[in-house]
C-alpha cells in the first residue's frame, strides 16, 4: 500500500473513530428544564422593586440570590428525577423481559414433564 493510500485508510479510521453518537435520552428534557428555569429567573428579576432605600435593594438582591439557589436546586432535583425515571424504565423493561423468559421456560419444562408422565402412565398400563 502506498503512502497516500495508507494515509487515506488511516484518516478513514479516524473519521470512524470520531463518528457522532447520540446525546443521552434525557438530554433534551434537561436542557429545556434549564431553559425554563432561566426563563423563570428572568421574569422574577424583571419584577419592579420599590425604590425605598438600601434596605429594599439589599432585600431584593437577597431574594435574587435565594431564587437563584432555589432554581439551581430545583433544576438539579428535576434532572436527577429524569435520569432516575429513565434508568427505572430501562430496568423495568429488562426485568419484565427476563420474567417473560423465565415463565416461558417454566411452561415448557412443565409441559414436557407432563408429556413424560403421560408416556409413563401409558407404559405402565401396557405392562
Amino acid at each position: 500500500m502506498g503512502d497516500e493510500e495508507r494515509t487515506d485508510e488511516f484518516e478513514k479510521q479516524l473519521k470512524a473513530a470520531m463518528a457522532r453518537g447520540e446525546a443521552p435520552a434525557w438530554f433534551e428534557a434537561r436542557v429545556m428544564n434549564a431553559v425554563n428555569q432561566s426563563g423563570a429567573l428572568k421574569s422574577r428579576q424583571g419584577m419592579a422593586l420599590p425604590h425605598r432605600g438600601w434596605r429594599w435593594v439589599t432585600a431584593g438582591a437577597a431574594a435574587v440570590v435565594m431564587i437563584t439557589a432555589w432554581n439551581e436546586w430545583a433544576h438539579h432535583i428535576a434532572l436527577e428525577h429524569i435520569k432516575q425515571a429513565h434508568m427505572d424504565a430501562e430496568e423495568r423493561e429488562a426485568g419484565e423481559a427476563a420474567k417473560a423468559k423465565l415463565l416461558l421456560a417454566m411452561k415448557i419444562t412443565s409441559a414436557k414433564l407432563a408429556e413424560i408422565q403421560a408416556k409413563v402412565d401409558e407404559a405402565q398400563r401396557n405392562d
Partner: protein
Amino acid sequence: MDAPAVNESGTKEGVTAPDTRAGFAQLLRVHQAMVFSIALHFLRDRSAAEEVAQDVFLQLHRSFDSVEPGRVVFWLRKVTGNRAIDYVRKRKLRAMVALEDAPEPRSQSAQPDLLLQARLRALIATLPEKPRMVMVLRYQEDVMPEEIAQMLGMPVRTVKSHLQRSLAMLREKIDRSMGDIR
C-alpha cells in the same frame, strides 16, 4: 454522519422562529448529537460532556439574536469547542493516558477496526487541548482548517500544524502497538 439534512443556517425549512419554545426545542433536537459528541470526544467524560453541551444550548437560547443568520452550526461548533477547552483548563483536567494504559476494548476478539478506533479515541484524548479540539472538529465534523481557525481563534497555519503533528503522533503510536495499518 447521520445528522439530518439541514442548511447552513442550521435550521430546517419551515422551522418556527427560534426564539419560540418550539423553535428552540427543534434546534436542540437537530443539533444535540453534534454538540454532545464534540464535547464527549474531547472530554471523554459523559457527565462533563452533558454539562458543557447544556451550557452551549443555554447560551444559544440567551444569545440567539446575536447569531448571524445561517451560521447556527458554525456558532454551535465554535462555542462547544471553546467551552470544552475552558472546562478542561478550569479543572486542569487532561487525560494522561499512555497507550499502554488506554483501556482495552472489552473483548480482544473484537474486529480489528473497532480495536483500532478505540485506541485512536484514547490517544486523541492525550493531546493538549487545542490540537485535540482541532482533531475533533476535523474528523468528527469534517470542518476545513480555515473554519477551524476561525472557530478556535488561531492562524490557519497553526491548525494545519496541529493536524500534521497529531496525525504523525497517532500513526507512530498505532504502528508501534498494532503493526502496519493496511
